[in-house]
C-alpha cells in the first residue's frame, strides 16, 4: 500500500546549525511509526517541518490521503491541518482558560464554521447551526470518554492534572478528524501506569476503535524513551544529530549497533562521519 506520508531528503538548517540532515523515510497507512533519538536529535524540528511550523530548507513532504497527493512543504500551517495532519506539542499547548469541552469544539472550528454560514448566518439565528453544534458536542463527548476525561468536561483545561492535559491534547487533535496524527513525546512526564494506558489509547486510535464513529488513523510518534515505543510501534525511524541512522521494525532496531551506540552516548564518532 502507498505510504501515507513520504519524507524525502528533508533538510532543515538554522543559520549554521543543521538540525535535520537529508532524512528520508515513509510512514505506512494504518500503522504507528515512531521517530526516536536522543535529546537534540532533531525530532521536534522534523515534526515542525511536517506540520508547517517551519519551512524546510530543502526536501519534500508528501501526504497521500483519499487518493490525493498533497505537497506539505508548500502549504501554510493551517492548510496542513486542513489537509489532514493533526499534532500535539512537546510542551502541552491547550487553551487553558477554556473548558475541556470548549477545547474540543475549537478543534471542530472548520465544520462548525461552515454550518454557521461563516459566522453570519448563526448571528441571525438561521437554522442548521444548532444541529451541527449538537453533532460537534457529540463527537467531543465521545473523545472525552475515550480519553477518560468525561468527568472533567466542564473544568478549565489549565486546571487538569498533567497526564489529563496530555490526553486532552490528543483528543483535541483527533477532533479535527485527521488522517495522520503526529504526537511529540506524548509519554513525557507520565507515570508507568499512565504510559501503559496511553499505549492502549494510541493502538485504539490507529485501529479506529478509540471513540464512537472514529475512522482509523495513522500515527507518527516522537519519543525520547525507547522503552515506550518498542511495545506499540509498527515501524521505527532513529535520528541522531539530525541524520537518520536506522529504519525498520522494532526487533531490528533493538539489535542495531548504531542505535545502541547512539543511546549509550557513543555517538560522537558517528557525528564526524556523518558531517
Amino acid at each position, binding site marked *: 500500500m502507498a505510504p501515507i506520508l513520504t519524507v524525502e531528503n528533508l533538510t532543515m538548517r538554522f543559520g549554521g546549525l543543521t538540525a535535520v540532515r537529508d532524512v528520508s523515510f515513509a510512514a505506512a497507512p494504518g500503522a504507528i511509526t515512531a521517530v526516536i533519538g536522543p535529546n537534540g536529535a532533531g525530532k521536534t524540528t522534523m515534526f515542525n517541518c511536517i506540520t508547517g511550523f517551519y519551512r524546510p530548507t530543502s526536501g519534500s513532504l508528501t501526504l497521500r490521503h483519499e487518493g490525493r497527493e498533497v505537497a506539505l512543504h508548500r502549504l501554510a500551517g493551517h492548510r496542513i491541518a486542513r489537509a489532514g495532519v493533526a499534532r500535539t506539542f512537546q510542551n502541552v499547548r491547550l487553551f487553558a482558560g477554556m473548558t475541556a*469541552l470548549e477545547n474540543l469544539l475549537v478543534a471542530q472550528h472548520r465544520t462548525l464554521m461552515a454550518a454557521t454560514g461563516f459566522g453570519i448566518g448563526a448571528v441571525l439565528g438561521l437554522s442548521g447551526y444548532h444541529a451541527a453544534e449538537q453533532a460537534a458536542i457529540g463527537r467531543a463527548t465521545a473523545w472525552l470518554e475515550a480519553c477518560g476525561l468525561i468527568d472533567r468536561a466542564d473544568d478549565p483545561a489549565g486546571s487538569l492534572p498533567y497526564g489529563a492535559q496530555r490526553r486532552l491534547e490528543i483528543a483535541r487533535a483527533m477532533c479535527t478528524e485527521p488522517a495522520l496524527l503526529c504526537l511529540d513525546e506524548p509519554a513525557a512526564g507520565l507515570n508507568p501506569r499512565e504510559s501503559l494506558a496511553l499505549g492502549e489509547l494510541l493502538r485504539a486510535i490507529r485501529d479506529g476503535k478509540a471513540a464512537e464513529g472514529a475512522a482509523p488513523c495513522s500515527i507518527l510518534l516522537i519519543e525520547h524513551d525507547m522503552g515506550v515505543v518498542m511495545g506499540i510501534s509498527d515501524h521505527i525511524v532513529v535520528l541522531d544529530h539530525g541524520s537518520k541512522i536506522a529504519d525498520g521494525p522494532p526487533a531490528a532496531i533493538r539489535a542495531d549497533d548504531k542505535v545502541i551506540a547512539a543511546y549509550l552516548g557513543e555517538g560522537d564518532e558517528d557525528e564526524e562521519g556523518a558531517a
Partner: protein
Amino acid sequence: MSLARTRRPVLGAALKDAGLAALVAAGLFLPMVGLRTDVGPTGALFLRTRWTDVLLLMAIVFAGRFLLRFWQEWRAERHGPSVQKRLAGPLSRSGRFVAPVLLLFALLLPAIPGIGRYELDLGILVLTYVMLGWGLNIVVGLAGLLDLGYVAFYAVGAYSYALLAQYFGLSFWICLPLAGLLAAFWGILLGFPVLRLRGDYLAIVTLGFGEIIRLVLLNWVSLTGGPNGISGIPRPSFFGLAFTAGGGPGSFADFFGLEPSPTHRVVFLYYLILALALLTNWVTLRLRRQPLGRAWEAMREDEIACRSLGINITTTKLTAFALGAMFGGFAGAFFATRQAFISPESFTFIESAIILAIVVLGGLGSQLGVAIAALVLIGGFEVFRDLQEWRMLVFGAAMVLIMIWKPRGLVGSRNPTVALGEKRTISAAMVAEGRG
C-alpha cells in the same frame, strides 16, 4: 506558644518592608522636600533645608507601610484565604442580578422622576462609552489584540456620516449602516498589513494608525474642513418625524399631539444609543457562543495551537478587527448626529486610552465589567467635575488600586460558552490575556 512563634516573623518582615519603604521615601524626599531654594531679603537665591519635614514624611511612610503589611499578614494568618477570595463567591452570585438590574435602570431612566436634561445627557455619554467599550472588547478582550488606535474607527464613523449627509443628503438611518461598513472596511485595510505583528508592535502600529487618521482629517481641509470641523450635521428623525423645537407640522410633537419640548430629542437620542449599545452586546454575546467567538478566545489563549487545528489566524483576527471597527463606526455616526458638529479634536489618543482603560478595568472579555467600568469612569468623571484637577489624581489612584486588587479587571473570570453539566465560571488566574 505557637502563636508567638508564627507572629514574630510576620513582625520582622513587616518591619523590614517598612524600613525599605522609608529608605525609598528618603531618596525621593531628600532632594524634593529637603532642599528648597528661596528668595532672600536681598533678592538673591538661597538654599533652605527642611530636614524635619523629610523625617516626618519618612515616619509617615514607615508607619503606613508597616501597618499595611502587618495587617495583610495578620489577616492571611487568621482567616486563611484573602478577602477577595472570600468575596468571590457572593460577588459572582450577585453578578447574576446586577446585569438585569442595570438594564432595567437604563431602560427606565428617562421615566424616573427628577431625571432632567443634564442626567439624560450624562446617560448618553456613558452609553456611548459603554458601546465603544463593548466594541473594543471584541478586539482586546476576546481576540486578545492590543489596539491603541480604536478611536480611528470612531472618527471614520463620525466623518462618514457627516460627509455622506452633507454631500449626498442621505438620512441618518441610511448613513448609520454605511458608516459602520466604512469603519469595518478601514479595520480590514489596517488589519491586513498589521496583523502579522504581535503584542507591543501591534499596539504601536495601531497607535500610529489612530494618529494618521486624525492628521488626515486635520489636513485634508477641502474635504473635512480641517481644524474647523464640520457643522450643521443633520439630526436624526423618528421614522421621518423631525424633532423641531417649535413643533410645527410633520414634527414628532405634532404627530403625537405632545407639547413641543427639546427633551424629546434627548430622550430619543438616549434610547437610540441604548439600542445601539445593546445591539453590540447582543451580537458579541451570540458570537461568543459560536465557532467564530470561540476561535477568537482560543487565539487569545494560544495562537500556535489554533494554527495546528486548521484555524486561519489572519482571517480570524481580521473578523475581530472588522467587527470591533464596525461598532466603533456606529458609535461615531451617533456621536456626529448628537453633537451636530465634529472636528478632529474629538478623536485624539486620549479617547483611545479612555476606551482601553474601560475595557481593562472592567475585565477583558466581560460585558458586565465593561459596562460597570464605563459607568464608574465616565459617570464619576462627570460627577466629580467640581474637584477640578484633583479628579485626575483620584481617578489615577483608583485605577492603580483596582489593578493591584484585581489585575484582570473588575470581572476577570470567564463564563464557559457551553457545558455538558452546569456552567461554572473559570477563575481569572486561568484565563490568558493574549499578547498580540
